[in-house]
């Protein structure tokens, strides 16, 4: 590949990324109606396989810290601070699950201990490098929601 071509393809990738990013709903712009967030935060469908990984990853969702989920038996020690998520898709619709993951306090009460994974309405004294950063990205939220929707 010539240098010129390489630069050109680089530019296209950057341009594509910019287009994709423009479609992402920022944390402050998420609209919740009747406990629902009606559309994907990225305009893309979530990937349940990715979502399962995000769910279990201690540095990402870390959902197993607080929830039992028998769909992930390979991971030891499921927490019990929140309810077991077995069959959760039968209790909530995907649009509601999206709200729970984005900002659980909008569905439960302000006293909920479940973190808001796509919210900037967080605690005091946030670690400096995390100010203005959500726990999960918009796409990771969509992936987790797609995964939760498989837990029938």
């Amino acid at each position, binding site marked *: 590949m010539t240098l010129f071509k390489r630069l050109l393809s680089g530019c296209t990738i950057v341009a594509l990324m910019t287009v994709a990013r423009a479609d992402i709903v920022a944390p402050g712009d998420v609209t919740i109606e009747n406990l629902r967030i009606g559309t994907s935060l990225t305009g893309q469908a979530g990937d349940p396989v990715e979502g399962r990984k995000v769910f279990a990853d201690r540095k990402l969702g870390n959902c197993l810290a607080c929830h039992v989920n028998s769909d992930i038996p390979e991971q030891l020690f499921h*927490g019990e*601070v929140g309810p077991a998520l077995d069959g959760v898709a039968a209790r909530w619709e995907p649009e509601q699950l999206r709200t729970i993951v984005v900002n659980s306090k909008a569905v439960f009460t302000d006293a909920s*201990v479940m973190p808001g994974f796509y919210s900037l309405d*967080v605690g005091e004294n946030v670690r400096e490098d995390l100010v203005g950063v959500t726990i999960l990205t918009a796409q990771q939220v969509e992936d987790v929601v797609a995964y939760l929707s498989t837990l029938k």
Partner: protein
Amino acid sequence: MNRKLLIVLLGTTSLYSMVSRVALADPSEGPLFIDGEIEMITRTESVEGHPLPEVISGWHYRTESTQALEADSFENPGMLAVEEGEVLWNTVEGSEGKSCASCHDDAAESMATVGASYPKWDAGSAKPINVEQRINMCRVEKMGAEAYPFDKGGQKPMTAFLKNLSLGEPVRIDVEEGEMQAWWERGKEMYYTRTGQLDLSCASCHEKNNGKYIRADHLSQGNVNGFPTYRLKQSALVSLHNRFRGCIRDTRAEMPDAFSDELMALEVYTTWRSQGLSVETPAVRQ
């Protein structure tokens, strides 16, 4: 009751709770005797104004083997630090050519109540001080020695030694003296303030959810009666302010400095909450 039998009995109850841990996550039964002799108060009615009816030692929430380690002072790895502290007590340091013993003689007598009654109001600095700070005051003002930096030098061993002298004594602090009340208020405010990206307060875990598992950790009430504690995970003695900082870090928040006004207020308030429980220093935790 003979000591071996007691440990076996203790072991059985907690093994049971470990095996069926999801179904039964209640704190295990006691009682805890150290070396089969000193009976520890590990559950007791809380003081007036406490949000929980009963205060329960972190010992109850640990596994059988961890509990047994604490019950036997020969097995307890934290006792090494206590012995180290005793050596330091008799060691001459600083420009005045004195050791702690030069002025205080037998620690078992002169320091018998110290470990159960701090933080105390210090009129000189118009602030509450804890045992670590009291040790440093004597080192600097009475011995002409350097203050121990946080968690360094002899700070943890000396603190463990002094607190261990109150083993079994119920924690009881005076929140009426000086301006302790204002510090108590500030500590209480901190206890209920959610911090960090995860938006959790001390109360989210230790008040609302004690008795439940958060991942592999059995959440206790976060009482302070065992500090410095020996943590198996770190294979080391861990100071109270180190533990505070760790719990705050886990909410993904900035950590206040050790002995800062924030953490001193938190120590005053959490010690008030832990009142009535025996000093367990050095407690063994996972």
